């Protein structure tokens, strides 16, 4: 063991140690990944990509563009419906993960990053609504200001300040959401998809888990006789 390591080497070794390529992008999944409920995570991710893509197109011509042209309005509509689909799939994903108790087996941080993503997505959407420069924006901003002011946030987060809200909406909140989602997905890759509850052989009910096995991609080939009880 060399006493001195470059930061680059240490960063690389930590990253590769936590997520070797076959763990980052495995080409198999545990056989218990056998339900449509599992696609709602990636569907939420897809929704986020469409939101960001349509948002990038909207910002090409500036915030007033969508009021003036059919093409601009088209991409605004894509952006709005992508937001509806994003929240739709995220909530169905959340319901699925709750009923699977997907935090088991050392996956608390996966739940936590997911929950925080949901909570951050809400003000991200709010800054979008108040940046529309139409009646909806006028109403929402003059209403939302009361909650912001009541908790003191209005002193530095002024929902009636279009310039500020637009900046938060197109840069700061997307960066936060993408960072949280990246962390969330990398944690899922690291710990694997949560395995099913082990059922008690006698009652058929879910037994309290001791050290719940993970669905983490195997570093070694699967060993017969371990894992799931019969």
């Amino acid at each position, binding site marked *: 063991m060399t006493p001195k390591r470059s930061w680059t080497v240490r960063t690389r070794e930590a990253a590769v140690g936590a997520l070797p390529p076959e763990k980052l992008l495995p080409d198999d999944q545990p056989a218990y990944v*056998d*339900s449509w*409920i599992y696609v709602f995570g990636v569907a939420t991710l897809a929704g986020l990509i469409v939101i960001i893509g349509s948002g990038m197109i909207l910002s090409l011509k500036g915030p007033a563009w969508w009021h003036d042209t*059919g093409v601009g309005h088209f991409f605004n509509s894509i952006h709005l419906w992508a937001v509806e689909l994003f929240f*739709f799939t995220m909530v169905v994903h959340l319901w*699925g993960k709750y009923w699977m108790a997907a935090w088991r087996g050392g996956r608390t941080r996966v739940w936590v990053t997911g929950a925080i993503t949901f909570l951050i997505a809400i003000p991200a959407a709010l800054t979008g609504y108040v940046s529309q420069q*139409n*009646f909806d924006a006028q109403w929402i901003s003059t209403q939302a200001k009361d909650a912001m002011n009541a908790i003191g946030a209005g002193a530095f987060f002024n929902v009636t300040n279009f310039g500020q809200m637009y900046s938060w909406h197109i840069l700061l909140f997307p960066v936060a959401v993408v960072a949280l989602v990246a962390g969330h997905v990398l944690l899922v890759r690291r710990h694997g998809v949560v395995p099913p509850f082990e059922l008690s052989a006698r009652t058929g009910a879910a037994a309290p888990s001791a050290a719940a096995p993970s669905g983490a991609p195997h570093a070694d080939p699967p060993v*017969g006789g371990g894992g799931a009880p019969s």
Partner: protein
Amino acid sequence: MSPMGAMFDVHSGRLTPMGAVFNLNNPAHVVHWHFIQLSVSNIVVIAVMLVVFALAIVIPFPGAARRQAARERWRGEP
């Protein structure tokens, strides 16, 4: 008639959106139940979410044969 002209009403501010098959720019229908007031469109979204969640759990996921083969391979290994 608004003094601003016939195309634009100062109270509703509504114009027909370009190219939409269905025009949703009409005042929402709202369901009142005790103190709860929900727009029909929001109720539809929430109902569809519940239905989709139920279907996602119930409808078989493709690849069952592949997974079964994997299980049999796993059991067959020494």
